């Protein structure tokens, strides 16, 4: 009697997500609307291979500002995140952190732009606030997973502070440092992207150069950016940290003034939903109208588009990862080919998805296609890198087959679980990015947020950001429940 072949829970989840991704794709607009996309692409490629480093002044300044915002933002985020991690067992702290990290840096930047204008405070806070929420969560997890044995050996009567400093901290310090380095890399990307809303970082110069077709300058900016990220381990040394931070604070243009009256008005009036602000007898009725109007015209279509794009990008990321991780896997490619694979993955994952989407949008015209390609390339390069490194730990038997047979039978089945774990872990990250790409003109929630800011309807903007944050928290919870049901785990290095 041959037993029936039952699909595994993992297989069922995979087919479910493939199906959802496919249905979302069927209803998506992925047309290329520009007349001759490949001609412009040719010009871009031509520019990429002929970088122009002669605009030294603006190049140096763009890179310096990008690094300064990243340094200060990540430093403050780290300090606040560490403090929050210590009190992370309070529910209110956990919920608060989940909330502030559910809002993307660019949304924070749009909010602070209304309060502090182009003051450096806008950029620093836009990075520091969401990062402190992320860092608090990760540090709290690191503290929780630390070896409990030394704690039992502490003499009775030792104070809580000294116990923490002598017992807990030494154990987890190395993890904190590794994670801070990773966050700084993320901070550099965030800082670069902040330029797109007007701060003087890389994105600003990139957008200008791109719009004017100076592709050789675009190339020079990007190459410098990759070099900064690739050499981070060389220049980021502990003794130099104070110098970097003081230097960063010194070079930023602090001259911009802002008025407290203006900030107070923004916080106490502008962001309050209009019907409440106006008051009057029919306040409740007009508030209901206001919410209904916003829901029907913006929240509903925006949420649908955001979820749709997220699902397509998630599935595409998974499929693309299957192509990317072999490029750096010693089980499948030789040393020379792997070097090329490493360079490719470093470049793709160091390019912020926002910049990728911006470039592709200019080549292909507005549709979901640039966003899908940008999100899946960037995320697949990140997951592919981690999975490729994971295959270095696998040992195959002496008689293992070669080539595609090896890939399908020996390698993919072994990496599939960790790959899905990482993919679900990044689901929420992809959603946050999807929302943000709306600023580029794709009709996700970010599009409506950006339009509301442009129309100076701050009450609508804040309400939409709130909805985006709630959506993000929901997806995070769903991802966590799927991961725990399928028993998919990520290790510390992969967060």
């Amino acid at each position, binding site marked *: 009697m041959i037993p029936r072949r039952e699909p*595994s829970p993992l297989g069922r989840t995979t087919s479910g997500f493939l199906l959802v991704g496919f249905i979302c794709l069927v209803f998506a607009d992925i047309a290329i609307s520009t007349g001759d996309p490949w001609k412009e692409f040719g010009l871009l490629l031509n520019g990429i291979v002929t970088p122009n480093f002669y605009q030294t002044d603006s190049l140096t300044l763009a890179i310096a500002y990008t690094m300064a915002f990243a340094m200060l933002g990540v430093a403050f985020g780290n300090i606040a995140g560490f403090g929050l991690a210590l009190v992370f067992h309070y529910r209110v702290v956990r919920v608060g952190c989940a909330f502030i990290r559910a809002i993307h840096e660019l949304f924070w930047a749009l909010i602070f732009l209304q309060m502090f204008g182009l003051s450096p405070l806008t950029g620093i806070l836009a990075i520091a606030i969401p990062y402190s929420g992320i860092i608090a969560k990760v540090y709290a997890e690191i503290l929780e997973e630390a070896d409990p044995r030394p704690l039992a050996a502490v003499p009775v009567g030792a104070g809580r502070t000294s116990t923490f400093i002598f017992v807990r901290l030494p154990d987890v310090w190395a993890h904190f440092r590794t994670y801070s380095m990773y966050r700084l890399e993320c901070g550099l990307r965030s800082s670069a992207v902040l330029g797109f809303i007007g701060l003087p970082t890389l994105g600003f110069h990139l957008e200008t150069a791109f719009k004017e077709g100076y592709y050789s300058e675009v190339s020079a900016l990007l190459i410098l950016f990759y070099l900064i990220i690739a050499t981070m381990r060389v220049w980021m040394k502990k003794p130099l940290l104070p110098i970097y931070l003081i230097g960063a604070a010194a070079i930023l243009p602090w001259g911009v003034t802002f008025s407290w009256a203006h900030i107070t008005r923004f916080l106490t009036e502008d962001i309050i939903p209009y019907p409440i602000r106006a008051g009057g007898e029919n306040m409740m009725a007009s508030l209901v109208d206001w919410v209904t109007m916003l829901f029907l015209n913006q929240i509903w279509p925006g949420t649908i588009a955001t979820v749709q794009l997220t699902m397509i990008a998630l599935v595409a990321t998974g499929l693309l990862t299957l192509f990317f991780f072999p490029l750096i896997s010693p089980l499948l490619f030789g040393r020379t080919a792997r070097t090329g694979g490493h360079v490719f993955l470093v470049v793709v994952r160091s390019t912020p998805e926002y910049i990728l989407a911006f470039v592709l949008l200019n080549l292909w015209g507005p549709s979901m296609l640039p966003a899908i390609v940008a999100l899946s390339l960037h995320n697949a390069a990140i997951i592919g890198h981690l999975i490729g490194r994971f295959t270095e730990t696998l040992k195959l*038997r*002496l008689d293992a087959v070669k080539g595609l047979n090896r890939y399908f039978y020996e390698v993919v*089945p072994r990496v599939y*679980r960790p790959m899905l774990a990482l993919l679900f872990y990044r689901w929420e990250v992809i959603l946050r990015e999807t929302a943000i790409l709306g600023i580029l003109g794709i009709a996700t929630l970010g599009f409506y947020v950006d339009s509301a800011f442009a129309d100076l309807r701050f009450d609508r903007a804040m309400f939409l950001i709130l909805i985006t944050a709630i959506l993000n928290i929901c997806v995070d919870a769903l991802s966590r429940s799927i991961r725990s049901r399928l028993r998919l785990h990520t290790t510390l290095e992969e967060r």
Partner: protein
Amino acid sequence: MSLLELRGESAGYNGKSILRDVSLKIEPGERIAFVGESGAGKSTLLRLLYGRLGNTAALMPQDSALVQSLSVFHNVYMGRLHQCSVWRNLRNLLFPAATDIEEVRKVLTPLRLEEKLFSNVGQLSGGQYQRTALARALYHPGRVIVADEPVSSVDEHQASEILSTMNCEKETVLLAMHDRALALEFANRIIGIRDGGIVMDTPSAGMTPEDLDELYLAGGMITA
């Protein structure tokens, strides 16, 4: 014509020499047990022999040999991966074909694994795991089997079952064993390894486990 001949071979890995000056001739149809202390060089010698035989031999390595996340069917089917086209293999990975299921089932039935056909290997008991590893080697078309400690983690009854199946199904059997009684029972030639060299090479007929003691005791020298 002999199946394989080694003349004064040396082998090792990571620049460390483990086997020194080994000469050996193997005829088709022989059932050879390589015995000796762990670390004496049995596994290295088997690797060397398998390297020479290549795909004409089926291999049963010592550990981490099966893909945990694949089913018994897939792991056994992997014994013939090298014979089929990539496309057929890929199709069988996702949607196993009835003919291949039948072929694999024929190997699994005598090993009492039929109802585990589509269970993941990660869910099997130690004995079932070892029998699956054997099924994979039996599914391999090679007439020779090279097995490194194939019964190290199963009880005596299952060990006998695995070794006698191996003897029935394959023409030539090359085994590394630490269990002396089983080695004498199932092999017709015993090769004793010590400190990277062959120190005993004799038919097993009439030998007792005590005759092999010298291989394990310090200082003893044996001339074969």
